């Protein structure tokens, strides 16, 4: 009896009817991936352009790895998922460049 009341209490504070929002945020994540997958050639072009820019300043060690991923941005007021472009750049050493 006590257990069931406690269970109900915990359900109350878990805001039991929230699966609609869960569905929405899960769906948003899935769709970012789905939509990004459709544009493989664009990702490749973006990657090549980024490499060109970075090479001016940095000597790369191996291949550049970029992908679109999703995370909850901390400064996002709605706490909703946003897509983030992540680039993993293995650096060998910085180039000596003069900036004027």
């Amino acid at each position: 009896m006590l257990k069931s009341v406690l269970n109900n209490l915990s359900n109350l504070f878990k805001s039991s009817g929230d699966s609609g929002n869960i569905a929405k945020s899960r769906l948003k994540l899935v769709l970012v991936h789905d939509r990004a997958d459709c544009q493989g050639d664009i990702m490749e072009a973006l990657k090549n352009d980024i490499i060109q820019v970075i090479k001016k300043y940095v000597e790369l060690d191996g291949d550049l790895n970029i992908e679109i991923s999703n995370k909850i941005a901390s400064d996002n007021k709605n706490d909703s998922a946003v897509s983030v472009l992540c680039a993993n750049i293995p650096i060998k050493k910085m180039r000596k460049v003069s900036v004027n």
Partner: protein
Amino acid sequence: MGEVIVITSGKGGVGKTTNSANIGAGLALANKKVVLVDADIGLRNLDVVLGLENRIVYDLVDVVEGNCRYKQALIKDKRFEGLYLLPAAQTRDKDAVSPEQMQKLCSILKEEFDYVIIDCPAGIEQGFKNAIAGADRAIVVTTPEISAVRDADRIIGLLEANELNNPMLILNRLRLDMVKRGDMMTIEDVKDILSIDVLGVVPDDEVIVVSTNKGEPAVTNLNSRAGQAFNNIVNRILGQKIEIMDFNRKDSFFTAIKNFFKLKKA
């Protein structure tokens, strides 16, 4: 010159055929000349939903293969003046028709009819390509479930890649009780995710099961909520501005308290 509208969804079982039947019947009730084309070759169902299954002689494949004139294959619905059905073949598969043949058929049909409504099969393969080939615009049907909305998103992308821009959405089988307690995505949620215009929202309604059992489109039953929803959709297709009913999610905390006491009592 009429308009060819394809009704599609990606996922199966979300209500393409029911929506096709009701939109077709509704347009006919509004004094339009309408032909419903069942493009789901091999799995035809529009005939039973409309209650016309006993009257099929020729089908879509017979027409494109030239076994009959297209007028011989059209079944006139005696209950709705101006409504015709071009049934799918049941014993053939999707490859029996090509997109070019469908395009040609649609251009012939829209000479004679105000609306050519194409009921698209589920999936994104040959049957989908055939169904959209001759279309001027598209209606995407989805339910407020993750899987259906995901597939709708894919379909919208494919439609736009095929130059069927600005498809309209029908959100089918919305359960107001579940939306109110926060356990179902709202109209706004789905609209926001798919970023397309909503043509209509059809509440989940037992009337649909009953009317399908009988082979009578629910759009004639204006006492039912689903019937009203289909009627609104038809009027929006005809260009009228009708507000979408407002089914916003209620305060989930209040609902939670209510449920808490309900559970305790039980």
